[in-house]
């Protein structure tokens, strides 16, 4: 992780998967949107698995960026994380293209 950058995003081992770690908030919005764009086109109509096992924090605006990323590609972003608040925020956003699964 570069100094001052609080998150990491890179392709995961699973097809159409990405790995997301760290903390995402107002300071990382532009970098996060740009990093998502660089992940390339996922399969249309399917799911993008976001392995967020190392995610410590994500705010509603970053979840909204992820939602828009999924909507623009016609897919569902499935976030697997231990940060349970992400699921509660996602429920408030009421976005079918975003699903947060809380892992133990």
């Amino acid at each position, binding site marked *: 992780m570069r100094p001052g950058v609080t998150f990491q995003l890179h392709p995961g081992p699973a097809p159409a998967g990405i790995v997301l770690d760290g903390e995402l*908030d107002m300071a990382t919005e532009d970098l996060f949107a740009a990093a998502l764009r660089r992940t390339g086109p996922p399969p249309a109509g399917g799911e993008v698995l976001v392995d967020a096992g190392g995610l410590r*924090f994500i705010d509603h*605006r970053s979840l909204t960026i992820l939602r828009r990323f999924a909507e623009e590609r016609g897919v569902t972003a499935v976030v697997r994380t231990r940060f349970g*608040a992400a699921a*509660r925020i996602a429920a408030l956003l009421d976005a079918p293209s975003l699903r947060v699964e809380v892992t133990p």
Partner: protein
Amino acid sequence: MRTGAAAGHHGYYHEAVCFGSDEDLLAVALPFLTGGVDAGEPTVVALGSRHTELVRAALPPGLPVTYLTGASVYARPAGAIRAYRELLAGYHAGGAAQIRIIGAVPPEVLGVTWDWWARYESAVNHAYDEFPLWGMCAYDTRTTSAAVLADVRRTHPRTALPGGRHVPNRDYTDPIPYLGERRQPVPDPVQRTTPRADLLAPTAAEARRAVRDAGRGHLPYQEVEDLIVAVSEAVANAHRHGRGPIRVRLWCGADRIVVAVTDSGTGPKDPFAGLLPAGDGSHGGLGLWIAHQSCNHVALYRDPAGFTIRLTAGNPHHDLRPESAGPQ
């Protein structure tokens, strides 16, 4: 077509019921509920267990009245608005010409956390006004303070009385000026102690770290997580919309954590900020609303220092548990 006192009214017909005895409550509630059922209107009771049982026992058996458990409906104002709007939208989509609801906030919120429920009572005049709702909010005058009853009269356009009377409240104040007052909440006694953290111009990440450090092992993990979310949103809001310097103070009580986020600005212009979502999140407007859904009390107020969002996780009812008021 709408029936009863609200016949011909457009939008939310919002009434207070200030009762001094079980008989007074029943004298208003029973004709209201049976009238709704007779007219084929969705008719709902959300009064809390004791008064719900009182009403249920007094109604003819088998009446199609829906009973909601008051405690879950009225956990947090922003959540109550969200849940009621969903309920109302469902009835409205089903063709209901009018929906009748009689509800009561739980007695414990009539103390030091009343301020955000007063904001709720004012905001719902706007938030439910797109629905043909006749709503009655019941307050027991034997256990409700004069100050709370004054807010009830300012936030309800009318009062329903026994004998089928419905009188306007002269003190009723439109939500926009009422909510714009941004009154100071009752200070939490822990705020008189030295803060556990006092951060000047922190980033959202630094503020989150302070909450994480204070919360570890102090409150259940989920409550700490939700407070981290709320504080992060409040600090982000202060950076985006407020004026520097931003100050974050955090206090720990035996059963709670209190965080005050202050900037030298005047706070959000939207009087409904926090209680209603503004937009879909693409252009802001959700941060304060999410904070209101994530904490057990949120106060928004102005004082000479500027604008403060005070967030409480854990038990905010320090008036009910005075022995737990001290710092840890």
